[in-house]
């Protein structure tokens, strides 16, 4: 894989990570009906973007490098794993018709915040089921070691709270996916590069050290208002929530200089066994709601970097409201996951005209002031690194209790597709400490 941003300083320095050139087994979740869901007139969230992405992915022939799965829809019971029962009951029974006939209480609509940002639309629950089913499915794929990277562009709805909807998100597929990952993995790292703070996920895991949440987001007079750098977690989760509050117009270079060292350090200190990356594409330049100035390559660099660590990786969608750019970004990131560089000239595809007038994969960044001064970014970086230095190395790992999975004999290594499993790495870590 020869990309322009292939200098991977970080990943290779970790023990037992492979070189980045190796292939990964990629599992891709796609519900063929996802593009038909429609939030309503003028609503910026358009599931249609996932359909465009799929079209682009297939016209770039990326499907040949992946396993593509139609997710099993998550049931109400599955969703109750995280969400409160009354909320799930409501969500699964409400529809525009029931609202029309007023069989549902306005009070409940208010209580669960199912208005304005989060309207009740046709097929709402089906959409949630597909989204959540994809993320849980992705987790199971990783758990079973059927895949090294699992992608669900319909997931990543990180604002949803336990007891209500928020910010276009109804069911927090990420939390559900992580809960599934936790069945097998001791520690899971969650990284969020959506322009909005990943508040739902942070909140859900605010008090546990089994999940570390790291969010890079626009902060200050911006939805959802949370994500202060001082929000570091609580209880045994203290120090296990990281927030990088950023200002408007951050560009590739600034972002990278912040992202890489922090994630590098997180990987070293926290040693996650699985990573979930929320790739909200509203941090791209020219997004309808976002205020960042990342290019597709800069955005995908996060994925590229994480991929180099060779840890089971779940890649999820999220925000993204200029849909042509969302499709560009996610198609490109799918290519990064499978290890292919895409030609800039888009192949002919069914949504070709969406990408005019250039019809290219990468678009010129918008000239925009970067309001993140280098010294501010440095302060943020230093504060976060300092916070990380307070972490005990690899928590939640009682060393005396090596879980059974680590004793499974290593599979044959000759195949390039077979990456070393992270459990070996933990074991080595353990030995080196002794």
């Amino acid at each position, binding site marked *: 894989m020869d990309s322009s941003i292939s200098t991977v300083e970080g990943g290779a320095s970790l023990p037992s990570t492979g070189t980045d050139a190796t292939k990964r087994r990629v599992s891709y979740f796609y519900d063929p009906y996802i593009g038909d869901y429609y939030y309503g*007139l003028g609503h910026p969230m358009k599931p249609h973007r996932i359909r465009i992405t799929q079209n682009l992915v297939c016209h770039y022939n*990326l499907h040949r490098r992946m396993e593509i799965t139609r997710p099993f829809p998550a049931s109400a019971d599955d969703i109750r794993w995280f969400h409160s029962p009354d909320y799930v009951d409501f969500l699964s029974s409400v529809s525009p018709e029931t609202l029309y006939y007023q069989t549902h209480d306005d009070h409940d609509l208010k209580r669960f915040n199912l208005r304005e940002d989060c309207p009740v639309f046709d097929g709402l629950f089906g959409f949630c089921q597909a989204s959540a089913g994809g993320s849980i499915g992705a987790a199971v794929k990783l758990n079973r070691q059927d895949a090294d990277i699992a992608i669900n562009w319909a997931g990543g709805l990180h604002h949803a709270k336990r007891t209500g909807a928020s910010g276009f998100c109804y069911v927090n597929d990420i939390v559900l996916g992580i809960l599934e990952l936790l069945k097998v993995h001791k520690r899971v790292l969650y990284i969020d590069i959506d322009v909005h703070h990943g508040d739902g996920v942070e909140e859900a895991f605010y008090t546990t050290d089994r999940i570390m949440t790291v969010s890079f987001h626009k902060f200050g007079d911006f939805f959802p*208002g949370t994500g202060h750098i001082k929000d570091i977690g609580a209880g045994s989760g203290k120090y296990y929530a990281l927030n990088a509050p950023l200002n408007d117009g951050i560009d590739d270079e600034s972002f990278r200089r912040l992202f890489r060292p922090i994630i590098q350090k997180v990987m070293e200190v926290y040693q996650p066994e699985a990573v979930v990356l929320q790739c909200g594409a509203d941090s791209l330049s020219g997004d309808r709601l976002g205020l960042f100035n990342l290019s597709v390559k800069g955005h995908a660099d996060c994925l590229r970097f994480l991929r180099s660590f060779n840890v089971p990786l779940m890649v999820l969608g999220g925000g993204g409201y200029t849909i042509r750019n969302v499709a560009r970004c996610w198609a490109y990131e799918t290519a990064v996951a499978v290890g292919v560089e895409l030609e800039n000239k888009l192949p002919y595809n069914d949504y070709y005209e969406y990408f005019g007038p250039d019809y290219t994969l990468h678009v010129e960044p918008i000239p925009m002031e970067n309001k993140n001064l280098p010294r501010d970014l440095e302060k943020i970086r230093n504060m976060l690194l300092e916070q990380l230095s307070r972490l005990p190395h690899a928590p939640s790992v009682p060393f005396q209790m090596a879980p059974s999975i680590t004793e499974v004999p290593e599979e044959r290594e000759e195949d390039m597709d077979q990456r070393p499993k992270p459990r070996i790495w933990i074991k080595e870590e353990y030995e080196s400490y002794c």
Partner: protein
Amino acid sequence: MEAWSSLNDESQVHKGNGESGSGINLTVELNGIDGCSKNRLKSLFDQVLSVFLSEVTEKKCLRPLPVMTSSGQPLDLFKLYWIVRKIGGYDRVSSKNLWAFIAEHCGLDVGAVAFVKLVYVKYLAEFDHWLRQFCKDGNLEKGEGGVIRRLDLLSKELETRFRRLLLRRCQKKKDTNLLPSKNGQVDFEMFTAESVNKTNDHTTRRSYSAENRNGNLYNSDEISVSKMDDDYVFLVSAEGIVEKVLYKAPDKSNNEYDDDENFFAHDGKNKVTSNGEVIQRAASAKSVIENVFDSRKRKRESSCFSGMLNWINHAAKHSNDPEIGEVPESSKWKGHTSNEFWFQVLLVKEALLKRRHIDTNAEESNPQKKQRMHPSMYEDERLNNQPAEKLRCSKRIPVSPKHAPCPCCNSCSTLHNKAATHQKEEEEDIRPDLTSVEVSVTEKIDDSGDQQTHPEVSVGPLHQAEVPEWSGVISESDSKWLGTRMWPPEVETTKSLVELDPIGEGRRSSCGCRFPQSVECIRFHIAEKRFKLKLELGPLFNRWRFDRMGEEVSLSWTAEEEERFKDMVRSSAMSNNKWKNSKKLLPSKTRNMLVSYYFNVFLIRRRSYQNRVTPKELDSDDDEIELGSVGDSFGNIAVHVPSSRSLTCVENKASLSSFFTSSPATFNPRPVSQLMSPTSSITEINQQFVAPEDTLKSNFGESPMKKKKRIKFSIPLAPVNKFSTKNLQINYKSV
């Protein structure tokens, strides 16, 4: 309408009083307890209560008025309510066992305790709750009946008056404490005089709201039951609250500052924000408040806060007094120190204002949940032709109250118009919600506005997921989650037949088309590519619903239906409801079909047009451009007319969009062999397709517009479109 008209009458009376009757009021006020205003308040109270009881509680049961005591005398509900409220509400009275005290005050004997309590619960508890709730919400619920609305107006006024009265009294008392030489008259004048300056308003409003908000704060321990002197209670509580609010600020902001030492270089009073701006005013405001804080520690009387209040009083009373001096223009403020009263006043005003904005702004009190992600999107989008940048900010920026009338003021403008000016201003300004006391004042002062207002992350079983401890035991997952594997196919059939393009390949830079990049050309290549993909995917092509992607979708639409759809979008673009007539206009189309057509056909055609005619506007516009610009004339003329006239025929009837479809409707039995030999490659087909276009060459002009119109003429080029996929496949297999 009875209540409504009486309300108007009422306010007219007030108007009169406010303007001419202040002298009378003054005297009454001076003589002790606000006789006149109390009577006014009482009559208003009675009105509201009776309407409330008859309307709001009508579903439950009837509560007759007036309430008669055992001795046959009517019980003064107003007095009862007044006293209970002053003490701090039902709960407080109950917890302190004060019902006997209350009964006594209502002129009943101690034996009537149960009676009084019962009356309160039956008549007033819900009313009180409603009144406070209403004021907290501040908003008229849509869709509720006119009665409630009228009631709201009434109660609004009632609440306002309550607060004003309360404040007046406590302020008076306070002043007599602080300034023994002055009497209450000053205060009263201060509140009634037309010349009251805005600063006063804000300060007093602050106190109002502080009082109002904090029924509970009456609990402040220093108030003992024995000190039931009304005025004193109010004084202490209101004072305490004002101070409390102010103290809280420095406390909290000090922490903030300490915490952020690493993050923000702060030097003395100057705070460097992340933007690198020095927020000097904020810092000085803070220092003022700190002064208040400190001085209270030393001695309350000497606090500069009281000094400032004195100054306000003085200024209000003698607005022409040269001693007051002039307040410089805002541009010169920075040079002044916080030692000057006017400057302090301004700072406090600013602090209070900001605080209020935030509060009214965060109407729902839980910004985390209720803040809207995209506030503009439900507003009148048709008129909203702004660049995308303006839509981006997710949180509403507080606007000055002068320009942003509160909803209640809108709805009761009649009332307010009739009220005296200062009265109106006060009423407008009093927006009693203010639910979140804990948000500190200084937080709002800081202009950077970001680091300070962030909500805390909620912790508790209602918020966190249940994460089990790591046990080392791996629990199995349901295999259902593996879903349905769709790719790679179980049986590989197509690979050998199709020459596969490399992975990641883009399009070739040139093509053999006569007019590269024309709509025709692109449509052809898309069809070609589509066909290749279909060959590779086999049945998966349909299972992934690629057959429902792109302009292909239009095949199931007739030209007439397409035209109607366009009309519908165009007309409803004006009226804010895109598909309101869809049932009528397109009865055969489900909502899903409409949505699909919109994304797959309508938008593509629009984009296709834009890409050629207005390419420069694309990058700055969002995907919803049609929602913004369609309503204006440009959108209609430039986008709709050409696309709907010229493209329709092309896309629907012509050529290649139906080329590869297997739909029997478009299947034409003409044998393939008429056009190409069985050994033709795709490229050859390509050339054959293009060939007829040559014949039309002379018809094409330069401008893309023209080209598009030409397309109309190029329709006959398509003997080609008579192919069916089936034929081609057979053809290929036979190769």
